[in-house]
């Protein structure tokens, strides 16, 4: 077990000089290798202080922090920081350096050869989705979203095993924010980094984290668990109120549609005989019939229009709500409700997987 812990906080306390109250109170926390942990809580809960103690921008008053088994005080602070990626809300790009030079910051500090730096910069631009022509520009010439991508690329430049993020998406507009969150999550999964991510936005914490640590004012750890477990069983009244309303819906947001039991529904192959078609309608007690061509979804036909003709002769209509199997149950519910549809069909690349109706979603909620 110990070997898999990347960051271990042991009874860490921080009291700022002149402050009466503790900023962080005896916090112990373990972050596994490759895990994405979000620190979330209201202002004054010490989440940012906790993060900054990991890369020693703030030094703890007492307690110890182990990075990959080594005490963080064992080497000089600047060396430790070069081995930990750091992304902040203000982004903090260096305005006087081009994008390429910004990304190259840590490799330059580590004294890499120029060709290696150039190669790494090009690779990272690709990783975070920056076009090559942006590399020669200055930060002021980029949009907020692009700047934040550069911030992430810069943090990843020397391939640090750990990435610390302090509300990195707090200042970008909501649409870009959602996209950046998705990209950041994908990136973390792809690169296997250990991430500690501070946010005050509980939905962001739920969406991003493998585990979330909920902190209360004064740096008290209220609960540390997977978002699913926390939503299902809030450990305290504080956690419950902090999670806010719609806890059930938020939990649905974490469950993939494939987590619910998909029904096969009244679907038949287009080659089926009219008799089979009518039997299927009766069996499911519905007035519509889904048509498949092998595994491929064709659409649906109205039950009343079924006459003696072969099914091939009917023009199938498209389903109002189609989802892919990586969509969340919350998306499915929302689609069904706003689309006034009775069912949502799950289709991956044209292949029919099954269908969901309100009943099957409701079953998940009550579970």
């Amino acid at each position, binding site marked *: 077990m110990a070997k898999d812990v990347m960051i271990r906080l042991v009874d860490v306390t921080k009291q700022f000089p002149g402050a009466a109250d503790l900023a962080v109170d005896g916090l112990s926390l373990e972050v596994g290798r490759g895990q994405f942990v979000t620190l979330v809580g209201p202002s004054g809960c010490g989440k940012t202080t906790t993060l900054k103690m990991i890369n020693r*921008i703030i030094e703890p008053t007492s307690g110890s922090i182990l990075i990959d088994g080594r005490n963080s005080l064992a080497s000089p602070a600047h060396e430790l*920081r070069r081995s930990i990626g750091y992304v*902040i809300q203000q982004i903090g790009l260096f*305005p006087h350096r081009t994008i390429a030079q910004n990304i190259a910051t840590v490799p330059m500090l580590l004294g890499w050869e120029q060709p290696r730096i150039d190669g790494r910069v090009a690779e990272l631009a690709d990783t975070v989705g920056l076009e090559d022509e942006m590399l020669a520009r200055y930060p002021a010439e980029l949009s907020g979203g692009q700047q934040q991508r550069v911030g992430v690329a810069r943090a990843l430049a020397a391939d640090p095993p750990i990435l610390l993020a302090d509300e990195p998406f707090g200042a970008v507009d909501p649409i870009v924010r959602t996209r950046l969150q998705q990209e950041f999550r994908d990136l973390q999964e792809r690169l296997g980094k250990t991430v500690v991510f501070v946010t005050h936005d509980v939905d962001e914490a739920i969406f991003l984290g493998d585990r979330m640590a909920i902190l209360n004012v004064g740096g008290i750890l209220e609960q540390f668990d997977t978002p699913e477990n926390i939503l299902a069983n809030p450990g305290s009244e504080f956690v419950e109120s902090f999670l806010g309303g719609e806890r059930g819906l938020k939990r649905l947001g974490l469950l993939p549609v494939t987590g619910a039991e998909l029904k096969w529904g009244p679907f038949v192959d287009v080659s089926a005989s009219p008799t089979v078609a009518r039997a299927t309608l009766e069996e499911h007690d519905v007035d519509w019939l889904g048509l498949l061509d092998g595994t491929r979804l064709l659409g649906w036909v109205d039950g009343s229009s079924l006459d003696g003709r072969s099914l091939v002769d009917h023009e199938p209509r498209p389903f109002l709500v189609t989802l892919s199997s990586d969509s969340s149950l919350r998306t499915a519910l929302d689609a069904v409700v706003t689309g006034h549809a009775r069912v949502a069909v799950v289709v991956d690349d044209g292949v029919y997987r099954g269908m969901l109706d309100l009943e099957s979603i409701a079953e998940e909620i009550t579970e």
Partner: protein
Amino acid sequence: MILAQQTMPLFDWSWVGRNLDTIWDRTLEHLRLTGFALVVGLALSIALAALALRKPRTYEPITAVTGIMYTIPSLAVFALARPWFGIGFVTAEIALVSYTLLILIRNIVAGINGVPPGVREAALGMGYRDGERLRRIEFPLALPVIVAGLRIATVTVIGLVTVTSLLGLGGLGFFILDGIRRSVIFPTGIIVGVVLSVALAAILDLVLLAVGRILTPWTRRGAV
């Protein structure tokens, strides 16, 4: 009763033609006195600003003392410095340098303190050591403000150097002094001294503006 008042023409071009060499020499003297004061002033200011940045409590006393130096009239400085340094170069430069300190120190400190906190924090988080961060991140970003201070200091010093001719150090003030001291005022000398020192100030100001812009290309590329 003056019957035939001897009048001088307002501007005598032939005098200029006859004295081109002297004018050139005086201009160079003026530049030397200015340049020396700026180099020494800048060096002292960087040292004092570094101290003020490292130990913020020292900032107030430093600006208080240099502020007093800034308000002492240059003639008073000459008088005060004379017992130790006599009448000459050192005394002149003490006066000139003391005028640059307040402007330069204030601008250096303001420039460095004006670096956005996020930039400073990012530099810290990336693993810059204090000295590296100051030299490679904060100082370049403070350049526009520092150069602005240097321009004011330069223009101020060029004006003051004309006064140092009182100490017999030459410079363009020589012509002005000479023009006033003659039994009959000699406008050509005064005009040459004034116009050239103003021109020098304007040219150096533009040169520094240009140098500043070349050193800070990022400031001119705005948002997309």
